[in-house]
């Protein structure tokens, strides 16, 4: 489970370098997100553009990441159609701000792709 981040003045972009966020990696994902959200800017964009598959455990880990980053805004970017479908079916698309891409999130303010 490889995640890295890049900071601009007021945004931290965390990129997930995995094609799956599933039951096998959910706990690791959540722990790494906790570490990466501990410091840095208060606005965090989670770039999921390399993730082609997410299951309910992975979804739960993304939700947990938002909750544990209390006080910070966690936004999502670059959801593949399959990943977006899971967010829509569970209505989690209404909980997160979802951007078309990390670039759109950084450049275009708060355009919500859903």
């Amino acid at each position: 489970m490889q995640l890295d981040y890049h900071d601009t003045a007021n945004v931290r972009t965390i990129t997930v370098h995995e094609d799956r966020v599933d039951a096998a990696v959910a706990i690791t994902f959540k722990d790494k997100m906790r570490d990466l959200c501990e410091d840095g800017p208060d606005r965090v964009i989670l770039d999921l553009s390399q993730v082609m598959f997410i299951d309910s455990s992975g979804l739960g880990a993304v939700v947990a990441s938002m909750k544990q980053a209390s006080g910070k805004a966690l936004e999502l970017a670059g959801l593949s159609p399959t990943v977006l479908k899971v967010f829509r079916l569970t209505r989690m698309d209404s909980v997160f701000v979802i951007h078309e891409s990390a670039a759109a999130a950084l450049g275009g303010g708060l355009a919500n792709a859903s």
Partner: protein
Amino acid sequence: MRPERLSFMGHARDLHKGSILPTCPRLHLVFPSDELAVRKALKSSMAGLAHMDMSADEKGTVELVLAEVLNNVVEHAYGGAGQGVIELDVSRDDDILVFDVLDDGLPMPDGETPAGRPLDLDTCAEQDLPEGGFGWFLIRELTQDLTYRRDGNRNHLSFKMRLGDKYRPN
């Protein structure tokens, strides 16, 4: 690379392949009850179903449902201990995929598949958002004819998924 075989696993890993062919419209997988084995089983299943010309959306849906069902077996029926065996059988009935999942783990609570509910948006503050419990909602939402039986010491879950108009067997 061939994984090490442990004594309790039997021939699970040897049977870890298959495809639904026109001449043999059945896919049968037997694998150990851990999350990485489930990943492999999903990969094998999707490879076995590849020639069915499903849309990307349908493939994503089938993989999601299988992931939810199989990981439930790993986590709940076998309690995450990783020492059980799971059997997955997929057959085709025209444009319907028929799934049977068998395991020797604990029975479902109250002998029934759990109810699944979507997020209740009216009552949910951020800190109260659920981090789990979506699996059964997704399974119920995306499948038909979901049935659960306890046969002796075995759990037997079966369900169907109807493919869209784009389905074309080769």
